[in-house]
């Protein structure tokens, strides 16, 4: 409860003040009325001393010690404040010790009332100082604690108690000349000093102090040592002037000051030595700390940002912070055009750098540098001497930025002076370069992935649209069972099939294959669909339809593009089909008698002008009987390769046709698809696959179909 503590602490102050006043009043009384040898005096002195010291002790030690850790916060400020407070208190003690003459006392009794009261006040001040010093040591030992600290603090507290009692007894019983006791005390003194010296060893924080902080620590601890040694020599229990003043207050009481002072001397010495030792390396340490934090910062930025500009700006700024550079910039090279982009210039004008690039081929020079390199004297360098002439740089560090196998940029830091950089600057810039390269590569990969995703979405859309260009369902055709499928090898393809009605209303099935595959083929496929739809209404037959398609498309396509097509007109009245082929795969016809490949003459669409095309196009009429199968397909099917490179082939296709007995084109094609996927196995289909199956079913021997 903070309120409770505050309340009690005010009482403690009041108690201490009252005890002090009572003591002075009592001393006044004793001086006048009592014989100095009266044994009651020592009891009075002891009781008042004990009461006063303990109230001050409780007051000081009831101050909560903040939970400080040596590696966090600005605990150094707190430390320096305490240090200054201590030195000021000590200076007060020294002044007092000098001011109060030794001759004011004789045999631990004041010569007159004035000196008695002065010594009372001063001793009480001394007690307070001693306890504050004790608290200081205690507090900072705790803050810089290590695993043995608490044991050591216990030993130190015990030592304080021991010396106090020992000196008290010695002085009261007049045992000053006792050799055994004084030797024992000396040995204990040394043991404690050594112990404290090791207790105060955790000073690694000093190394991380900025140079100014270290200088201050050296100065203040040195001053502290001097002041404390003076006080210590004054307060030594047998000879010092402070010791005599304390002895008047209570024999042996100077331990309450001398022991903490001894602690603090050792503590200061340790600080002084550590600070002094770390002074020469302080610049390096500062630099390393700054490098480390910049790299950490850079890494954080890298993990957070996918914005190229932002990252480069941060990098050129950080480069200035960690090196001796006066200015910096970055430049990037376009892989294809070789164009140089200068960006993120710091301190120096971007226009100036761009101007240099226009006038000189500086990027070529940079590109030749394969790893972070220092050019100590620009003037002496024949290739870039102009940088010195233009007063841009006296020396510079060039750091290449590269991905696995591609040099895409350069990070440049410059100093106006020749030999303006240190060896360490190259190392840190190399580290920077590596980090930035990775980050930029990441950004590039991310944006590539985003772009890919975008294209993928576009392709999916194209795929959807292309699916809609194919018949959603095949309308029923009298006496025929018809089915089809089309599987592009990529998202979109160049295969096409359709069912439509020609001029006289007869249904017509088309299958087509645009040369090539992928997007290009898909565009031609869409164009083909449009052409077919527009010419079908005027077409008089299977061959005529192909002629019309060719006359529209010949010359309208790129020269190396062509389309193979087959068309088939259903003649239900005549139980036959009329078939024409324009460069397309043969059609398999399976009848009761035999299974054969039919390949009427015909040139691919887009290959020949109308006259040649027309004169070489034949049309075949085929009479069909129940169960006869007619299979159209694109080359993706017969050329489908398995893992060993073996093609599916015409023979296997014919065999599947021969085995057909369902009279259902749909289930026939389902079976074909199963066989195809069994064939391809783990291999990948390299071409679009489309098939159209037509099975003649006039119901004459329907009972045979189960």
């Amino acid at each position, binding site marked *: 409860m903070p309120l409770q503590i505050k309340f009690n602490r005010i009482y403690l102050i009041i108690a201490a003040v009252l005890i002090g006043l009572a003591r002075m009043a009592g001393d006044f009384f004793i001086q006048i009325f009592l014989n100095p040898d009266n044994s009651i005096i020592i009891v009075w002195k002891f009781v008042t001393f004990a009461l006063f010291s303990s109230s001050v002790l409780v007051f000081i030690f009831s101050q909560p010690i903040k939970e400080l850790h040596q590696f966090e916060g600005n605990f150094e400020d707190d430390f320096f404040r305490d240090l200054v407070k201590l030195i000021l208190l000590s200076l007060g003690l020294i002044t007092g010790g000098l001011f109060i003459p030794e001759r004011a006392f004789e045999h631990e009794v004041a010569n007159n009332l004035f000196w008695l009261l002065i010594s009372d006040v001063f001793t009480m001040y001394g007690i307070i100082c001693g306890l504050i010093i004790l608290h200081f040591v205690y507090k900072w030992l705790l803050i810089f604690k290590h695993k043995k600290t608490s044991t050591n603090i216990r030993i130190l507290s015990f030592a304080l108690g021991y010396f106090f009692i020992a000196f008290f007894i010695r002085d009261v019983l007049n045992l000053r000349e006792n050799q055994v006791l004084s030797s024992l005390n000396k040995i204990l003194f040394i043991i404690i000093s050594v112990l404290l010296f090791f207790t105060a060893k955790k000073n690694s924080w000093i190394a991380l102090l900025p140079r100014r902080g270290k200088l201050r620590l050296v100065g203040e601890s040195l001053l502290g040592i001097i002041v404390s040694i003076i006080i210590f020599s004054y307060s030594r229990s047998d000879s010092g002037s402070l010791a005599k003043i304390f002895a008047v207050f209570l024999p042996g009481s100077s331990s309450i000051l001398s022991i903490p002072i001894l602690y603090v001397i050792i503590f200061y010495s340790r600080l002084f030595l550590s600070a002094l030792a770390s002074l020469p390396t302080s610049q390096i340490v500062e630099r390393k700390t700054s490098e480390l934090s910049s790299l950490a910062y850079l890494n954080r930025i890298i993990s957070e940002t996918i914005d190229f500009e932002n990252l480069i700006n941060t990098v050129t700024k950080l480069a200035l912070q960690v090196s001796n550079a006066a200015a910096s910039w970055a430049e990037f090279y376009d892989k294809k055009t070789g164009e140089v982009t200068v960006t993120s210039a710091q301190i120096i004008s971007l226009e100036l750098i761009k101007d240099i690039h226009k006038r000189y081929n500086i990027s070529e020079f940079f590109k030749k540098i394969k790893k972070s390199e220092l050019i100590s004297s620009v003037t002496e360098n024949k290739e870039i001497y102009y940088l010195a002439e233009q007063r841009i740089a006296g020396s510079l560090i060039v750091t290449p930025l590269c991905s696995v196998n591609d040099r895409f940029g350069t990070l440049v830091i410059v100093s106006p002076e020749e030999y303006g950089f240190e060896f360490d600057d190259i190392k840190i810039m190399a580290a920077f370069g590596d980090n930035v390269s990775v980050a930029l590569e990441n950004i590039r990969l991310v944006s590539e992935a985003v772009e890919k995703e975008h294209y993928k979405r576009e392709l999916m859309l194209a795929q959807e649209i292309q699916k809609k260009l194919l018949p959603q369902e095949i309308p029923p055709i009298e006496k025929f069972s018809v089915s089809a499928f089309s599987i592009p090898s990529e998202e979109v393809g160049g295969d096409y099939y359709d069912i439509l009605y020609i001029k006289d209303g007869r249904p017509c099935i088309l299958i087509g294959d645009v040369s*090539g595959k992928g997007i290009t083929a898909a565009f031609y496929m869409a164009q083909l669909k449009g052409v077919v739809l527009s010419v079908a209404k005027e077409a008089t037959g299977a061959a005529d339809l192909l002629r019309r398609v060719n006359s529209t498309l010949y010359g309208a396509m*790129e020269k*190396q593009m062509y389309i193979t097509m087959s068309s088939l007109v259903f003649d239900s009245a005549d139980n036959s089909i009329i078939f024409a082929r324009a460069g397309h*795969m043969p059609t398999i016809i399976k009848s009761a008698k035999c299974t054969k490949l039919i*390949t009427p003459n015909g040139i691919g669409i887009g*290959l*020949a002008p109308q006259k040649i095309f027309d004169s070489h196009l034949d049309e075949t009429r085929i009479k069909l009987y129940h169960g006869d199968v007619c299979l159209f397909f694109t080359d993706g099917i017969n050329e489908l390769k398995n893992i060993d490179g073996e093609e599916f082939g015409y023979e296997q296709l014919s065999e599947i046709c021969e085995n057909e007995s369902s009279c259902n084109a749909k289930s026939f094609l389902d079976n074909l698809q199963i066989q195809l996927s069994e064939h391809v196995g783990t291999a990948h289909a390299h*071409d679009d696959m489309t098939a159209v199956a037509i099975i003649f079913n006039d119901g004459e021997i329907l009972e045979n179909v189960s």
Partner: protein
Amino acid sequence: MKNQNKFEIKHQANRGIQCLNLEGYLDAHTAPKLESAIEELMKSGFNKILVNFQDLDYISSAGLGVFMAFIEEIRESGGDIKLTSMKSKIFSVFDLLGFPILFDIETNDESAIAKFLKNDLRKNEE
């Protein structure tokens, strides 16, 4: 499948006729190689080109397209592209498309060269 992308063109001149001997797989990936080879010949002013298919194992639709891309221009300049020595499988691909109507496909280099020379002779007589 492993050799799919392996495609070589060997070029030699025979009595003023540029002979290209194709080897391996001619598909969408390798077609540009043949395209640039023919283009180069045309740029250098040659218009009598003989393409030998003896060592070609596979040709795709994109491969066939290469010949279509140039034939018109070459014929306009008075030259020709003659195709020779096809394996039956390769020939059937050309045949299905109707190429024999459009291109001069010969069984061997000699007959193709003879035709080129004969044609030249006729022109000279004219």
